[in-house]
């Protein structure tokens, strides 16, 4: 059943226009009827983008289908063209749809917990970014270590620590690294050591 559906997607040009029908050697008729029966019409007009799974580091390819009218992701499945997974996904990869906006538990607002409070408050990005930068600067300026016990210039801060992350993109990692080093942070670690 799974295979049939993928073949349908490939043939209908939703997945990749370059896939030749002849290679699959299939008659479109019955497959199309099957798709209609499943009422997946939305898939026919969906915009498809490729991605890579966000769990283990095997790096399986994904096809993400977005409903062009509503601008919402309607399906995520394995990319049959990808040489690593050839369309397969594990239980987690196959559930990736539930990491998208379709999951009501997603964080959609900046949340703030005040000292000694027992609840979250919603805040704006401007407020949060300003307050975070102010706090980082205050701690950095108050605790900056210009020289260590031996009198060597070290230009570092030990009162701020940083953890993470192996779940962000390489470009974000580089940017984060630049921020962390510019602040002078030395307590720096992430999942690679866990």
């Amino acid at each position, binding site marked *: 059943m799974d295979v049939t559906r993928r073949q349908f997607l490939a043939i209908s040009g939703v997945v990749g226009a370059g896939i030749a029908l002849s290679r699959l050697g299939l008659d479109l008729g019955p497959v199309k009827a099957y798709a209609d029966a499943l009422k997946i019409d939305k898939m026919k007009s969906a915009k498809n983008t490729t991605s890579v799974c966000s769990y283990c580091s095997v790096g399986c390819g994904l096809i993400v289908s977005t409903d062009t009218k509503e601008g919402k992701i309607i399906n995520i499945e394995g990319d049959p063209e990808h040489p690593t997974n050839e369309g397969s996904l594990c239980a987690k990869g196959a559930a990736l749809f*539930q990491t998208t906006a379709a999951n009501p538990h997603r964080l*959609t607002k900046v949340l703030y917990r005040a*000292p000694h409070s027992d609840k979250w408050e919603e805040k704006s990005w401007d407020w949060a970014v300003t307050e975070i930068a102010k706090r980082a600067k205050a701690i950095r300026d108050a605790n900056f270590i210009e020289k260590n016990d031996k009198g060597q210039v070290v230009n570092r801060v030990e009162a701020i620590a940083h953890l993470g992350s192996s779940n962000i993109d390489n470009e974000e990692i580089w940017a984060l690294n630049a921020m962390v080093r510019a602040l002078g942070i030395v307590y720096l670690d992430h999942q690679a050591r866990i």
Partner: protein
Amino acid sequence: MGSNAAENHPISMKWVMKAKENGATIISVDPRFTRTSAIADFYTALRSGTDIAFLGGMINFILEKNKYFKEYVENYTNASYLVGKKYGFKDGLFAGYDPKTRKYDMAAWAFEKDDKGVPKKDPTLQNPRCVFQLLKKHYSRYTPEKVSRITGTPVEDLLKVYELFSSTGVRDKAGSVLYALGWTHHTYGSQIIRTSAIIQLLLGNIGIAGGGINALRGQPNVQGSTDGALLFHLIPGYLKVPRASQQTLEEYLKVYTPTTAEAQSVNWWSNTPKYTVSLLKSFFGDKATKENGFGYSWLPKADDGQTYSWLDMCDVMYQGKIKGMFVWSQNPAGSHPNTNKTLKALSNLDWLVHANIFNNETASFWHSPGLDPKKIKTEVFLLPAACSVEREGSLTNSGRLVQWRYKAVDPPGDAIPDGEIINRIVLKLKELYQKEGGKCPEPILNLKWDYVDDKGRFDPHKMAKEINGYFLKDLTLKDPAGKDLAFKKGDLVPSFAYLQADGSTSCGNWLFCASYTNAGNMMARRGKEDPTGLGLYPNWAWCWPVNRRVLYNRASCDPSGQPWNPKRPLVKWDGSKWVGDVPDGPWPPMTDTEKGKLPFIMKPDGRAFLYGPGMVDGPFPEHYEPYENPLGKNPMSAQVTNPAIKIFKSDMDKVASADPKYPIVCSTNTITEHWCSGSMTRWQPWLLEAQPELFVEMSPQLAGEIGVKNGDRVKVASIRGEVECVAMVTPRMRPFKVDGKVLHQVALPFAFGWLMPKSDKNYSTNLLTPGVGDANTMCPEYKGFMVNVTKV
């Protein structure tokens, strides 16, 4: 070994199964009979934490039975090198140990060199001080009987595994090792992996198609975040972090730029100055000048010999010395050891900034069962991030394959990509330092920061190009064939071979140079061609370095450049050039005594290290017991635990070795349906339904002894904490006979907590685990600690 690929890297298993169809023999060695074991041709169990003993026995077997690949060992490893007279090994300790500092003087392990600085060698491998003879002597102690006494593995099973695997030590066979956290989660994890490296070198299995030691890494971009060095001891591209004793760039480069007197060695790290200066140009742009040491002084300097890992950080935080903390997509309150200490440490912070797609036990730590929010001062900023399909950028898989992923939709609500969160904080910091001044403002004000699109948002393409690197002025350089190549200012650098040490190039990470060139974004390629037929797919995405798919691939050929196995040629010297995979250098093979080069280009002397004088806990791996262990003694020597580990002494770092109150060995593991601490997957009903709650696997024999039935609720306790869970009584677990007595082992996944599903009890398995780490890496010992199990 050390991996349960079928459950934790399921799609990798597809190819293991394919190999099996093609005639490969699959061996699984694991304390638990897992789904990987279920498809193996041969399975046997070992007690958690005894892998060095198990593998040391295999080294002994290979050398005793002459199973090693002679030509490979003689030509490509340091087997023939003579070790200096200071080296010694006695009763579990190598020469040079200082019990006061718990550190070795590694100079005691140095090679003996001639007056030109070339290591002395004995090509006959007979000299008693040559590496080969020392290796033989060291592992002669690892007899099958002794190994069995330690591991609990029957002797006949050991011999079966040794025989099967060592049969790959011939020209036309490949043996591959897949490992994961089962090997890293020990106080000697790096040395377990080195033991495997020694075996693979002895069998000639490194650099060949289908060979190698393959880390199945656990996170989508953990390879990229290691390459990108979000780590205390590195800066991007595996360059070392500047230390306090290196006050100037010259001093830094002098320490970290290795030299060699070996004529046929490439010594690739001799390029360190080019990569370092190009990185500084990426950090600080025009503000990095030759006169100011390219801004080197603005980088923070770590103290010499000091570690700043999570375990250190947590300890210092517990002492109240850390005020603020950023945690990016990580859940230390669930995934880090000794949860009770972690929670106390977090409570000591003034503020915590956390970015993620879901709430988790770290962001909400102040609400943890047993903690009173009113008593916790920590301010928490919880920032909504975009999920993986709502942002664009690259990530690097376990095989160094760097793949580009596209954004499908905008994130929901106020959520934004992590890159944009970072962008906003950096711009605000720059604004504040510009306006108000402050301590050492230069690194913040001078940080090059033009990675935004025309709407002022973080632009992953601009960042990817900076990581690749630019020519900063017009340059004419020679290509490898000696031809002139003209580059213009603003051109993307096509290969790290063209990076410069004078500030005329920038490069955010030399290993990624060639990933995004004037020809386009190489990481986004989707070519399916496979010219070698080995599954390398050279036009699919991009692989560091320079799209090389197998590292050290020239070792797949004999010294004249002809493949050891002509049926599966990875590279081949055709008389004027290498054909096949991108070779690890253009030089002719070694038999060209003038221009030929050795294959292990990242080692100063060009040869792979059977004897590794760079590891802090010994040049040869040696069996020690876990830090918290069942016997209180080591059947191999008087040294019970790894002598070079760092020991934390807070009141919350208790251990209970050979304590009758905690008689059962315990290890932690992952399950298919949840990812790590479950902080993403427990919010997904499809997955939570499949694996709803914490369980402990135990053998029917143990269950019988403690009066527990399958499905009973039990309490698992260590000296540090306890969790309640469901008992899963299964013959997948079996008791071990160790040092003459029966030992039980249990296993728990660590994917659960209290926030989701919401509970007034904390189901974090890490309440049990000890906060102690590997001597080389500081990776915690999540496996092989001691617990007790009782019926609730």
